[in-house]
């Protein structure tokens, strides 16, 4: 009887420990690293911009919130007030650009990128800012460069 009680107590403690451990792990879980995430789509600036020009609602549903791999030529580079690099890929056939802000961990790589570089990167597509005055933008957040000027 005593042995049985001990086994039950031990089981309860194990369940509690596993539960607490899972809870803490889940609570402190970091946001997904794009490099550990499989891209849902592999696209170019032209193909992504065309999707939003043709049918914005459909493109929003298809791409927003998804990890995307982009292969394109960098048009320009900006730096925000926190020192984060933003790579800009302008579509020559519309007023749409893709703005890919580099993840904190991958930001240093942005320093060596020049306009005209052919880049392969991954980022989370987080929305579309349609703006006739400023030009429309598809936003890729937490992006990381995979390869530069490859063949």
């Amino acid at each position, binding site marked *: 009887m005593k042995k049985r009680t001990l086994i039950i107590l031990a089981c309860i403690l194990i369940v509690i420990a596993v539960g607490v451990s899972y809870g803490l792990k889940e609570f402190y879980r970091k946001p997904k690293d794009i490099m550990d995430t499989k891209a849902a789509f592999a696209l170019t600036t032209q193909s992504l911009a065309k999707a939003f020009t043709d049918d914005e609602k459909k493109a929003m549903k298809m791409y927003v919130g998804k990890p995307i791999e982009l292969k394109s030529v960098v048009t320009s580079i900006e730096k*925000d*007030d926190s020192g984060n690099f933003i790579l800009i890929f302008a579509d020559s056939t519309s007023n749409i650009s893709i703005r890919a802000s580099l993840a904190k961990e991958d930001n240093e790589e942005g320093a060596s990128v020049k306009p005209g570089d052919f880049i392969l990167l991954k980022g989370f597509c987080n*929305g579309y800012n349609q*703006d006739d005055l400023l030009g429309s933008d598809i936003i890729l957040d*937490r992006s990381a460069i995979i390869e530069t000027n490859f063949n």
Partner: protein
Amino acid sequence: MKKAILISCCLFLISILHAQDKFFTKTGQLHFDATTKSSPTTIEGKHKSVVAVLDIKTGNLQFSILMKSFLFKQALMEEHFNENYVESDKYPKCEFKGLVLNNADVNYGKDGSYNAKVKGTLMMHGVTKEIETTGKVIIKEGKPQLKAIFSITLTDYNISIPNLVSDEISKIATIDLDCSLEPLKK
């Protein structure tokens, strides 16, 4: 011939002056904090791609924020923010359209820090509400920087906090906005 050159120069100068009525950014910063004394950790998010446009001639001011671009230290907080609170799939943007009420008091041609009163409508989570707040317009080297700290009541925008965590998440979020604007050359 001289007259034609003079007229061309004048038109060019007018076009430059006209273009510089508008200033903008696509990299404005916004920080929100909904931490309470009982929060197990800071409930905060950062946004680094606020779009803002200011017309210094009229004082018209607009902000646009993509909700999914808020960055959080913890994934769980980011997921709850997007899925349970702001429902960013359904309401992807937050927009403010308003006016600097005392625009005439801001000397955009002279470096300095000016108090600004701003009034307009804030559209978030499918609710449009009129808000009024104060902030600063800081002019440095001819370019305006907009700074404001204000609060919003989440229930005003139909964002409800579940009872289970009502002590841990503030019903009033503090918003800290900082946008350095550049001239819009179009």
